[in-house]
């Protein structure tokens, strides 16, 4: 994890600091999007979206297919008009700037390298169009080739490259003219798993070295979680939540986010008591229907009596061999699946719901109970999260 990520995590965890950070420290904003909507004849691709992306940030748009990620990128790049709303680049509206005048470059999903030009000519193209000097262009081209480790491939044609190499040329071509913002539309989706994992680290490293703001589009949650400073989770043209990987995963704001990112358990429940209310972080006592009580956190202001679900990640649940006391949640162990580093257990709770548990196969945490056994269930502190339906 990098520095930005940690600082964001800290401020998400402690509300006092949060207020300080957002009001007193001016944040340099690269892209600011206000109330943006995009309608096609029969679909609403983007529905009143507002978000701001900080300078030098690795920002990810994550969401299922068709949620409007590409549309948003294409609007920022200037290929698509907006139906309503505004886009600002470093504080200036770019509505009237055509695509070829925006200091924003794109790494296209299908790379779109110019097939009749060599790798070097592809990389030089943007700089030539900007009218840089020949010596600068040559120098920068070599620098870019070195950055993406393709110095020996300068004279090849795109058709003579492997998928991974073509992807890196596309990246070098987009970085070469030193854009203020780089847009990447699922740049890794055409690569095989091994290469994809290697390229994630490489991309992240290049972003940190160049200090360029990256807006990265993906529908792969693992990719989003491992690379991003912040993630915007999108669904059906709306933004569901914006936050660091940690916040999005540990403190989902609604059922969609909790469901879309990772695996989770959802248990029906009703709020019985509000213990502590601090705006963005509230402690609640919830009655799990037919099971008993549990303390949970919530980011929204919630009144007693509200119904919803309590969400708990499988890795935050532990199986207790014996039920220590009466108030504890109980269930029957149904299935154990060995998965290498972890074991995954399915437990049938007393109210009939099934619960997924994942526990590391270390000697200390190994599950010793057998299918059929009645077991107690423990949850980590602060692991339960109450979400309104």
């Amino acid at each position, binding site marked *: 994890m990098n520095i930005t990520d940690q600082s964001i995590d800290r401020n998400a965890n402690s509300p006092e600091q949060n207020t300080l950070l957002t009001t007193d420290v001016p944040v340099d904003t690269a892209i600011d999007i206000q109330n943006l909507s995009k309608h096609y004849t029969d679909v609403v691709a983007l529905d009143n979206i507002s978000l701001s992306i900080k300078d030098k940030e690795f920002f990810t748009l994550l969401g299922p297919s068709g949620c409007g990620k590409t549309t948003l990128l294409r609007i920022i*790049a*200037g*290929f698509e008009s907006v139906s309503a709303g505004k886009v600002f680049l470093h504080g200036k509206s770019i509505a009237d700037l*055509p*695509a*070829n*005048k925006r200091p*924003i*470059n*794109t790494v*296209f999903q*299908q790379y*779109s*390298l*110019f*097939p*009749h030009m060599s790798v070097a000519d592809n990389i030089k*193209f*943007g700089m030539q*169009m*900007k009218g840089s000097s020949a010596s600068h262009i040559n120098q920068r081209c070599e620098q870019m080739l070195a950055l993406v480790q393709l110095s020996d491939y300068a004279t090849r*044609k*795109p*058709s003579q*490259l492997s998928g991974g190499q*073509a992807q890196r040329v596309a990246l070098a*071509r*987009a970085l070469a*003219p030193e854009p203020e913002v780089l847009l990447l539309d699922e740049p890794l989706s055409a690569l095989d798993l091994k290469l994809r994992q290697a390229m994630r680290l490489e991309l992240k490293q290049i972003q940190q070295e160049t200090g360029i703001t990256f807006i990265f589009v993906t529908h792969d949650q693992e990719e989003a979680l491992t690379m991003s400073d912040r993630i915007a989770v999108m669904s059906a043209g709306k933004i569901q939540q914006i936050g660091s990987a940690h916040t999005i995963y540990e403190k989902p704001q609604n059922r969609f986010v909790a469901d879309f990112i990772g695996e989770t358990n959802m248990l029906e429940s009703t709020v019985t008591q509000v213990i502590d209310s601090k705006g963005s972080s509230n402690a609640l006592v919830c009655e799990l229907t037919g099971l008993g009580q549990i303390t949970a956190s919530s980011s929204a202001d919630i009144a007693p009596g509200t119904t919803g679900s309590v969400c708990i990640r499988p890795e935050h649940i532990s199986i207790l061999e014996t039920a220590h006391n009466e108030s504890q949640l109980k269930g029957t162990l149904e299935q154990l699946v060995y998965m290498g580093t972890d074991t995954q257990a399915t437990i049938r709770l007393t109210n009939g719901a099934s619960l997924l548990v994942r526990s590391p196969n270390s000697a200390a945490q190994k599950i010793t109970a057998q299918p059929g056994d009645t077991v107690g269930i423990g949850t980590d502190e602060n692991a339960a999260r109450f979400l309104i339906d």
Partner: protein
Amino acid sequence: MKSQSNSQQNNIVPANATFHNQKNKLLLPAWLVIGFFLVVPVLMMLVYSFLTKEFRGGVIWEFSLAAYDQFFFDRGLFGDEPAKIDWTYIKIYGRSALQALIATLLCLVIGFPTAYYIATRPVRSRPLWVFLITIPYWVNLLIRTVSMKFLIRDNGPLNTWLLQAGIIDQPIHLINTNLAVQLGLFYSYLPFMVLPIYASIERFDFSLSEAAADLYASRWTTLRQIILPMVKPGIIAGCILVFVPSLGAFLAPDLLGGAKNFMIGSLIEEQFKGNAGNWPFGAASSMILLIIVLLVLLIYARNESHAQGAR
């Protein structure tokens, strides 16, 4: 797109022997037709061009270089003066080439934007546009050329409209001019330019022009540096398909150009018409035309293979 087609080419497995034989058998009718209707007539022309002329048309089976001699050299009225180069026929060829070239350029200038327009329409409406382009060509070329002659007459509809609209105050004299021939050729062969260019623009991946715009290229630069190089094969095919038939055309020059604007096609036609003709000379003129055309194609093919090799 490019990389896909290339890798497909690389993956072609040599066909096994039986499959190969099968394919040859299937091609047999085509080979017969080509052999009978193309190779045999060309060989006949070649042979005739080296024979002696019969005065009332036809040939005498006696070897002679007279036809080629007549084409290139002037030996006086009775053939007894020292040979000097005769520019008459060479000039006709030169003028024909120039006319064909101008007609080709006209077709290109009008045809490229047309093809571009059609290729960028929604997929559903493209066939309709192609259909509209080809409609006039359902009418016989002769009738189209005659009607063009009627249209551009000094007191024809074109001049009448222009006069009435006040665009001109005197009829433009078009008939029997070079321009009339060029327009006639242009009108005769326009679809041969539009269709191959359309086919190659349709295959063009327009995300490449977005990529160019993303990298600060203006529309004009994108057209010049990205689109044109990639649709070049279509443009060259179109130019050849217009230039070659224009070079040997005789309807448009005959009907629209008059005697002054004589072209190769008319020259050759004369040699085989009635009793005044000269078959060996007509055959020799045809062979010279054929050689010019083959040279043009050869130069193109060589350039193409060089470009392929560099890729």
